[in-house]
């Protein structure tokens, strides 16, 4: 066989493309789901949260979360009037901190508050599914990763249980499963969202305070919401690219 240089230059890239498609293998199992068409996140509307704990219970039921550990939990903040009047001080007073409670992660709700003064609000917390997540960067074996559709997942058959990721997460969203001895965390109900369902916490939320959002879907109402509301993420200074968006978040929330 005698190949000219011209033929060679055409054949080589063609072979490279063919080899790439061989490497890519068969498409994924969910037939109507294409990972590259999604970029998942969550919207949490603080003024709508009533602190019922439905999301925490639903998450435990859906994902078999062991007692005492949480993939999502709810915190109740209380900023006293006294503290709020001091807010205008020129130098921040480190002693002024809100009272934060989260009895059993808020699973059974919260004790009734009788002190009418000050400002109360509930902050549901969960994995922020960061686009530049610190937890996936520290894994020594490649057991935790950001999926092509933007969900931070743990490969529990590959995890060693070294807990580096538990320490690396600035939001405290990971734990070591007491029986499996591997890292466990919110999967954004990956087994549900790939089937076209919403997450268990969103399904169970009675007020719509939690909403699953797909940032790659141009029809998703999140785009309009982000433009018209004061939306923040937790710890923006850490540049984690968090994708859990909080509407009307109080500045005292950490």
């Amino acid at each position, binding site marked *: 066989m005698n190949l000219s240089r011209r033929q060679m230059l055409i054949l080589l890239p063609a072979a490279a493309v063919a080899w790439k498609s061989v490497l*890519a*293998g068969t498409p*994924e*199992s*969910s037939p109507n789901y294409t*990972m590259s068409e999604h970029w998942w996140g969550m919207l949490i509307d603080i*003024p*709508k949260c*009533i*602190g*019922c*704990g*439905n999301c925490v219970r*639903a998450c435990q*039921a*859906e994902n078999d979360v062991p007692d005492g550990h949480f993939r999502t939990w709810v915190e*109740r903040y*209380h900023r006293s009037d006294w503290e709020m009047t001091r807010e205008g001080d020129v130098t921040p007073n480190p002693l002024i901190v809100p009272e934060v409670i989260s009895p059993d992660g808020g699973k059974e*709700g*919260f004790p*009734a*508050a*009788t*002190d*009418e003064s000050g400002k*109360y*609000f*509930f902050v549901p917390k969960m994995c922020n599914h960061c686009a530049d997540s610190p937890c996936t960067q520290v894994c020594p074996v*490649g*057991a*935790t*990763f*950001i*999926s*092509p559709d933007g969900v931070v*997942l743990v*490969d529990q*058959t*590959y995890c060693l249980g070294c807990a580096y990721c538990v320490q690396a997460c600035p939001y405290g969203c990971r734990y070591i499963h007491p029986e499996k001895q591997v890292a466990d965390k919110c*999967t954004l109900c*990956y*087994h*549900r969202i*790939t*089937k076209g*369902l*919403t997450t*268990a916490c969103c*399904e*169970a*939320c*009675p*007020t*719509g305070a939690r909403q699953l959002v797909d940032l790659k879907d141009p029809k998703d109402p999140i785009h309009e919401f982000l433009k018209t509301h004061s939306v923040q993420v937790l710890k923006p200074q850490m540049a984690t690219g968090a994708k859990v968006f909080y509407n009307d978040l109080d500045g005292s929330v950490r």
Partner: protein
Amino acid sequence: MSTFKEAGHLFRFAGLFVLAFLVFLVVRHFVVPKSFGEYGHYRGAAIGEIAARPVHFAGHAACESCHTDIADTKHAGKHAGVNCEACHGPLAKHADDPTAMTPVKPDTAVLCVRCHAASAARPKDFPQIAADHSNGLACETCHNPHSPGMDATPAAPAKKTASAGGAK
């Protein structure tokens, strides 16, 4: 040729390196999972395994495909935005095969107060009920949980449960 003869020990040493590299390749072939590196520095097949976990909450669309009457009542009332399984719990088993599992009716004494018990911490515009509101009567004596406003009459099942509650 004499130069190569003197360098024989170097070739043996190089051979050792080649052998070690081949052993490394063979071991790597068996130790590293097939799908590792498919999308990045992780096992690509893990995504499919996580996606294949069982679903427990069927989703309100599944409920409403059969229970259309209750869905209509609910959508007309104040609980229109509350999904079925928010109160009834995870019922994917029932949705897959209605005969396999019959849902247990939630106890309104526990259920309603989770959201509606009065607390200064809840948003001010959210309906809140003081502890002495009903004098110990069950919520559903007066309110239909699927459409709780007082202008709506309590649904027939409420009476049924009231008698069942008395029998207990």
